[in-house]
Every structure is written in C-alpha cells, then in structure tokens.
C-alpha cells in the first residue's frame, strides 16, 4: 500500500503545451493516476511555488533565462526528473531558430512583419531575456528519464508512468517510441 501519495510537479519551458495536452489525453486513466499521485506545481494546478517533490516532469527546452531558473529549481526539488517530448530532449522545433542569429529572428518577427505600426523589439523588464540559442534540458541538468515524442502519446505516457510508479525498468513497446 502506498501510504502517502507521490508528489509530482510538471512545467512547460520552451514547449507548446502539447505534451501536457497529451497527459490530459490519459482521460479516465487520470482517475487511476490520482489515486497514486498528487500534483504540486503544474499548469494543471496553478500552484506557483514548487515544493519538495518525488517526480518532476519537464516539457520544452530552454530558450530564456526564466526557463533556466525554473529548470534548476526543478532539479533541486525533484528526486526524479523526466524530460518529456522532443523539445525537452533535443530542443525540438524552437531550436530551429539556432540556424539564425537571435537578432535576425527578433527583427524578422518584430520589425519586418507586415502591417506593423511603430515597429520595435519588445524590451519590457518583465519579459525574460532570450538565450542566444535554444537547448535541450539535459545540457544543463542531470535528467533521469527521457520520454520521446512530439508529443509522446497518452499510451506512451501511461506505460512510462505505470512502470515508473511500480518501480520497474522502463520498456516502451515499439509503437510507443516516436520522435515525431
């Protein structure tokens, strides 16, 4: 019997929330999951402060300074840290901007777009500073498990989480390993 529920935190760094949507695609299996875990900080709970957790699940790579801080905090507070999805694992689609200078990307979006009035690159102090390149999270902190997919299917997430919670080694069936 599990006496106290495992604490799980999740976050989306430079991702599209697709992985979190896939997590919600667990549908009724979410009830089974809720028997065993309790969400801490997560877009699903809207808890802002990260507590001490058993498992942290990260969607998205790092693209700005805030992403890096969040990632370091997750690593410090979570016993087990999981990279979920293509962006967390390899930078994914956002990392395609690494082909260009950051300045060129910003200018293309904010000063060369069509129909712009008083075009300027946003510079509010509240906006986290962008990194010059997008990187996967294993290049910054130690990652314990990787779950590929863009996004990983709900079935893949279910296999992964079930095996992890049961303390078993992770063995995904062939059809659940995808990079796309």
């Amino acid at each position, binding site marked *: 019997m599990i006496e106290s529920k495992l604490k799980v935190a999740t976050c989306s760094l430079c991702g599209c929330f697709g992985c979190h949507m896939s997590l919600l695609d667990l549908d009724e299996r979410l009830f089974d999951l809720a028997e065993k875990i309790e969400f801490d900080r997560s877009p699903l709970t809207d808890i802002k402060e990260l507590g001490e957790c058993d498992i942290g699940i990260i969607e998205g790579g790092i693209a700005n300074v805030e992403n890096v801080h969040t990632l370091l905090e997750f690593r410090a507070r979570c016993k087990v840290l999981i990279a979920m999805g293509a962006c967390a694992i390899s930078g994914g689609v956002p*990392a395609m901007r690494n082909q260009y200078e950051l300045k060129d990307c910003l200018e293309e979006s904010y000063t060369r777009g069509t129909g712009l009035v008083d075009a300027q690159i946003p510079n509010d102090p509240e906006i986290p500073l962008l990194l010059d390149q997008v990187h996967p999270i294993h290049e910054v902190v130690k990652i314990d498990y990787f779950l*590929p997919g863009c996004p990983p299917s709900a079935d893949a997430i279910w296999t992964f989480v079930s095996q992890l919670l049961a303390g078993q080694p992770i063995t995904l069936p062939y059809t659940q390993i995808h990079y*796309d």
Partner: protein
Amino acid sequence: MSEESTFTLDGRKVPFRDGQTIMAAALAAGVYIPHLCFNPEFPPHGSCRVCLVKVNGRMQASCTAPAMAGQVVQSETEEIREIRRGILQMLFVEGNHVCPACEKSGACQLQAVAYYVGMLAPHYTHFYPRRPVDASHPDALLDFNRCILCELCVRASRDVDGKNVFAVQGRGIKAHLVVNTPSGKLGATDFSLSDKAAQVCPTGTILSKHSGYEIPIGQRLYDRKPINVVGDVAALAVSKGGRRHD
C-alpha cells in the same frame, strides 16, 4: 551445406558464398543487422559503423568484413546495442534532425534504426550546425541539415545515373555534402526525381517537392513495424511506403 561455408550469427548458422561479406550473407539468410550506409545494390562504404558486430571477439563493420568459415559473430548483444545507440546519438547531434518538422519522419531509415536500437534521447551536446537548404530545383528539395554523409547519393549518381551530381567535400568534422556545379545549386544540374540518387537517401535530405505528407504521420512505413521487419525504405516500392520507383 558443408561445414566450410557457414558462420554463426548470434548462434544461428548462416551460409555464405566466397567473397560475400557478413552483412550480405546475413541479409540473404533473412537476418537483420542494422545499417545506414550499406545498400545491397552498391559496394559497401563502411562509413557509418552502425553495422558493427563482434567477429571472433573483435569489433568489425559487418558490411565490409568478409564472411569466413567458422566465424563466431555476435550482433544482438546488449554491449553492441549500446555502442550502436552511441553511434546513432552522435549522428543525431551532429546534424539538425528535427523529426517533428521533417517530411521523411516515419519513413526515415536513420530514425528507424534509432528506434530499433532503443535510442530514447540523443544524450550528447547538440552541435546545431548551420547548414543551408537548397530549394533551387523545380522537383527536389535538398536539406543539408539531415545529411549523415553515407555517400549513397554520391555513389548512385556517379555509378548508376552517370551524372555525378553529388560529392563530399572537406575533412573530419568539416566534411559536408555538396552539389557538383559552380553555383553549388541542385537546380543547375540535370538531376531528376527518376534518378537512382533520388531514391537511396536513408534520411530526409533529398526530398521530392509537390508531394509532401501524402501518407499521414502515424501511417508510415516505420510507424507500426520496426525496420528489421519491414526492411529498408530504399528497397521498397513507392506503393509500399518506400521510395523505389517501379
């Protein structure tokens, strides 16, 4: 079959003809050994090293190692899988293999072999090299980000098509694929989609235009079944989800 003309591969007896490589004999016997730069229609190249096996205790590329009587060959051991995974991981971080944004995803041999060896993440630090895309040809697109330098297109264009459209230039980490024209543009060559060179790329580097996503993601060659079961994309007819023109 006489004792002289077989070797064992993971404990199974495999017959071979004189001059055959371990890879060719295994393929003929229906035993899959992962490979990328090897295509049975061309002489072996021995560059990707994914096909490595242990022959009498020594690591060798099975696509170039000649088969010899009585050899004890190991392929599907955890030690070799681990090394193959490492090679795949290095190939992934050296280029820009953004599977979610690639038209070849699901029918890509690089991806399929990575699935086969159980690669979950690229592990190493990404290089994010800056490489161009060449869209100058009316029917074909060249995305150099995905090239793994297997030289199959080089070999096919030179030896089968007689056009010599592609070449590899530079050495070591600077080695890269080029198009053999003064402008370096594919549009300036007589390359055509019916060329053999258009059908052999194991990655999504050479793609045909005007036909993207005809087979939806999820229903492609390697989406349901692994490469050891379905075979190489270059060896299968277009009607079977491959890229070989009939």
